[in-house]
């Protein structure tokens, strides 16, 4: 697909995603039934969980394309990796802000070392390292390679982090009265959650395509600068 095609597809998906998002908001405020024990605050869960899911999807995509970039050295793979990383960072930030807001009401505290929250926080920092490494190298090609290494090692480390924070928690019971979700989710809540998951995924891919197209335009500019410098010398 050409860059302008990407841009059109990205715009379409993003618009669709944003409309879907408005729909999800409407559903979660006016349609879905209120969870009995947690009250209204539980409704944030329809944003929180899909954001978490999307950020992990983005991280996986980033690590996958990073690995392929190191192998094949195709610039497009690096563009995909950075586009995924940026989307992932946005959704991880949403997850990390909605979690404490809900936690304050449900658990009486902004922050707990809830394993999934901890895992997302650490992943957020791995993304941060990804971008810092990328931008602090004088040779852009080197920055891309370094960032790819960060993404791959991060993805390999995620299972270890997950297991270890779970294990840590099993030793230190938290004052948790209710779990944010359970297998016994009533029908309309489940429907809304799945709808929201689909909408977030859609929105992510919309942003992903837009960002990918932007990187493509940027490298086109670089190419033009190169040609000018060769002709000029």
């Amino acid at each position, binding site marked *: 697909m050409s860059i302008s095609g990407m841009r059109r597809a990205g715009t379409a998906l993003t618009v669709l995603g944003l409309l879907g998002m408005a729909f999800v908001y409407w559903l979660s405020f006016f349609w879905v039934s209120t969870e009995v024990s947690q009250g209204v605050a539980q409704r944030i869960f329809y944003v929180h969980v899909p954001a978490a899911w999307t950020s992990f999807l983005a991280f996986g995509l980033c690590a996958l394309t990073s690995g392929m970039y190191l192998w094949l050295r195709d610039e497009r793979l690096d563009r995909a990796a950075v586009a995924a990383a940026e989307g992932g960072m946005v959704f991880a930030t949403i997850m990390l802000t909605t979690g404490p807001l809900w936690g304050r009401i449900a658990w009486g505290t902004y922050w707990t070392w809830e394993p999934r929250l901890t895992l997302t926080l650490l992943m957020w920092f791995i993304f941060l390292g990804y971008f810092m490494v990328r931008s602090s190298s004088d040779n852009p*090609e080197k920055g891309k390679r370094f960032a790819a290494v960060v993404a791959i090692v991060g993805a390999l480390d995620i299972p270890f982090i997950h297991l270890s924070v779970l294990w840590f928690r099993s030793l230190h019971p938290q004052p948790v009265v209710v779990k944010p979700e359970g297998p016994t989710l009533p029908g309309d809540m489940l429907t809304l959650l799945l709808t929201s998951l689909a909408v977030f995924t859609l929105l992510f891919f919309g942003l992903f395509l837009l960002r990918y197209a932007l990187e493509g335009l940027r490298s086109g500019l*670089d190419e033009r*600068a*190169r040609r000018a*410098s060769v002709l000029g*010398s």
Partner: protein
Amino acid sequence: MAESHPSEGSAPAADAPVLDARGLFREYGPVVAVAGIDLELAAGEFLSVFGPNGAGKSSLLGMLSGALRPTRGTVRVGGVDLAADGGSWRRHVGVLSHRGFLYAQLTAEENLRFYGTLYDLPDLEDRVPERLRQVGLAGKARARVRELSHGMRQRLSLARALLHDPRLVLLDEPYTGLDPSAAALLRGVLTELRDGERTVVMVTHNLHEGLELATRVAVQVGGRFAWEGTRADAGADFEHLYHRVVEERS
């Protein structure tokens, strides 16, 4: 410079050229250091590449040595593609730059033994003292590099670069900062390297030293070879030719 010239002296006809570079490009973001160079060298040839600062000479040499990955293009040493092979071709390549590649805290002997092991050389017990003797450092084998004089260090890095008897020798401004005795030694060693079997590429901006031993000459400007030919083509008044080429292209 695609076809290989019959060089002076007697170069043995090899199946594959010792060095074969095609369509080399090297870019750093929006900057182009090397913009399309083709190069083929047979055994016994000695190529000197001249050019002003920023012409991309070091980037070219970096790609030929396998230190830099070309953005586009291929480099073959003895017919082996540098990008595809695991690195066994590195055995046949020696690099001497104005940086010495030496560890200041190790002794002269330890430095050579270290590099000798990295090159998996079998006879280090004999080879190391012999090479130290050749560069006049036999008495300094156990002295740490930081205690050596500037000239001694340069002689040691010369011994280091040629320790594994490379077939292809790449020199990056080797005369920069040399004292007269080290320069004389380098000249002697380079003359010996013209034994008809070794291939040498030297990049430099010093016309006099570069022309001395060259069989082929190239002028690199703006990432490309702006002029190339045999030593005979370069003529007696190469300096004039060089400045004309550089001015035309920049």
